[in-house]
């Protein structure tokens, strides 16, 4: 119940890439009880620090979970018989196939509820029946006259999707922006876990901005915070009909630990050891190049940061009916907490020693 409430608060808050102030306010409120400082940087990251109990100077680990979500933006205001309609474009990787019929909020001078409309099937010529509407065929309708629209809305205003978080059966829930509010929930649960479990390292929890567009928050925060290690937390593909191949994972069967050139093997091993200590089932995801997450930006900041990646399985990514299993969020939070609690003053040395070892991987 508590996890649902937490995810609900985060998921239902608007936070288009580039307009993260609302979601940042909410995350700040949620994290406040668990951390020592909260600041915002000049690109829009929310940065919270929980000090460790080790002697100064303490090593620092950065947790990055992005708070931004895919969204739309007003591109043109159209006039039709005295009414105003909005042509839009995408902010981040919006799947145009499902836009028709969605409900939205236009972040104009005031917040305006609206719908994404186009022609109903009855009115479409036969050759247009079988393909989704493109941006040039869709409009956002806020129900106002042209004059009223022009007063309240301008080109460049952000549009976020509206969708309440709903329970499915068992522990599965569905809603919007679970990419990546599911991971923000996990980071919150990790911070809560660390209230009761001592840790020597400083923990820098970052709700990053603009991941969906260019990993901006990861690059910027890793540069400014100079952590010794970092972990990105993001969603990955859940198993379902048609999605059964490699690198897709059962919902509710535990977090996914990623390995590949985007992840430091020592971080992977340490996360795995933490899971073992918790007797928690985890899965292994692989990438042969970029992971498509904040880990890609974190890894090459400054003189390089040993980076890990924890992923939460999710179905129907980048739609308004993304599905996750709450137990995966809870386990990911516990795993991150335990991993951090186990970090000691020898850990960094272990990372570099591990890279120099010859022979078979210890995995």
């Amino acid at each position, binding site marked *: 119940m508590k996890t649902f409430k937490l995810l609900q608060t985060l998921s239902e808050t608007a936070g288009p*890439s*580039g*307009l993260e*102030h609302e979601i940042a306010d909410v995350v700040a409120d949620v994290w406040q009880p668990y951390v020592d400082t909260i600041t915002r*940087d*000049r*690109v*829009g*990251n929310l940065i919270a620090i929980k000090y460790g109990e080790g002697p100064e100077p303490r090593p620092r680990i950065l947790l990055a979970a992005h708070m931004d979500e895919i969204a739309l*933006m*007003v*591109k*043109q*205001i159209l006039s039709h018989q005295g009414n105003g309609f909005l*042509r839009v*474009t995408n*902010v981040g990787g919006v799947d145009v196939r499902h836009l028709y019929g969605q409900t939205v909020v236009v972040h104009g001078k005031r917040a305006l509820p609206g719908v994404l409309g186009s022609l109903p099937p009855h009115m479409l010529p036969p050759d247009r029946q079988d393909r989704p509407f493109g941006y*040039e065929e869709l409009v956002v309708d806020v129900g106002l006259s042209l004059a009223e629209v022009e007063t309240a809305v*301008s*080109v*460049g205003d952000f549009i976020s999707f509206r969708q309440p978080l709903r329970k499915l059966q068992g522990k599965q829930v569905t809603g919007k922006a679970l990419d990546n509010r599911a991971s923000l929930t996990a980071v919150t649960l990790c911070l809560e876990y660390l209230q009761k479990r001592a840790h020597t390292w400083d923990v820098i929890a970052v709700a990053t901005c*603009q991941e969906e*567009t*260019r990993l*901006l*928050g990861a*690059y*910027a*925060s890793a*540069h*400014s915070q100079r952590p010794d290690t970092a972990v990105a937390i993001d969603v990955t593909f859940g198993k379902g009909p048609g999605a059964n191949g490699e690198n897709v994972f059962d919902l509710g069967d535990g977090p996914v630990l990623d390995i590949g050139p985007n992840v430091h093997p020592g971080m992977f091993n340490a996360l795995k050891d933490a899971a073992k200590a918790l007797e928690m089932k985890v899965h292994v995801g692989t990438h042969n190049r970029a992971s498509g997450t904040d880990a890609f930006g974190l890894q090459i900041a400054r003189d390089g940061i040993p980076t890990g990646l924890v992923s939460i399985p999710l179905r129907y990514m980048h739609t308004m009916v993304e599905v996750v299993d709450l137990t995966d969020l809870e386990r990911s939070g516990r795993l991150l907490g335990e991993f951090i609690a186990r970090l000691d003053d020898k850990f960094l040395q272990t990372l570099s020693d591990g890279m120099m070892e010859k022979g078979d991987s210890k995995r």
Partner: protein
Amino acid sequence: MNDLIKKLVEAYGPSGFEDHMRDLIRPEVEPYVDEMSVDALGNLITLKKGDGSGLKVMIAAHMDEIGVMVTHITKEGFLRFTNIGGVRPHGLWGSRVQFANGVIGMIGSDRIDDRSKIHPLSKHYIDVGATSAEDCPVGVGDAAGFVQPFFTNGKLLTSKTMDDRIGCVVAIEALKRLETTPHDVYFVFSVQEEVGTRGAEAAANGIDPDVGIALDVTITGDVPECPPMSVSLGKGAAIKVKDSGMIAHAGLVRLMRQRAEAANIAHQMEVLDGGSTDARSIQIANGGAAAGCISIPCRYVHSQSETVHADDVQACIDLLVEILSKPIEL
């Protein structure tokens, strides 16, 4: 101002070969700045100091232009070439290019059998009047820019390199008018924008600004059958909200808009689907900067007849001065 525009837009300076442009711009800005330097990539970095109460602001306008580079010389003395930046094969045939040493060549193409198709760049060549590889006055690796005189048609200003020499003009004119500023303002005349906004990235890493503003052209949606776009020529400075490379800092966008409204400067909001500017590099350099862009609306971008409106140029100068002469609260 047209004299300055003419001087800059007719000059040679493909990406990576901006020395001549730098020499042209340096004397224009020297009397107005406190410090001036050239970094390892060739960026001309100038500083106008503030009174200590403001932020560190980086203004970027790029000196480079799109062009071509010789890849091979045939035994008959014709030059095959590749692109520097976004050169499209449309409209290449019959155009003229000039090399750093002043040599001018005409562009021809291999035989055209199907007039419904356009030859790729690789089937074009440059004719500099040579008869063999031996008597050819330019070599492999030499770069050329297009040749077109600046011309005006009422308030419409046309040249081969409004992108982004007109941005350089906006920067220079704003600098001339900016008497005092609270901010340490770095006016950067950047290199290699057309090949991936690379000069500005290095400059921003070095300067580490709080705020970054690029001055560059943007396309318009006011010509026949163009994709939907709400920017029009003559309707004022375009305040960029988003392009395909970045989303501008929401607070900076708000500030630009408020300043334009308060000072009665014609302006329009810009959402661009394709293309980006130096601001994208400034945004992500170091710990990140609040980045935005003042765009000069321009028709026929990356053609040899890039066209801007004199009133828009003036509006961009006015807006930049308005922003830089007062405190910036984001």
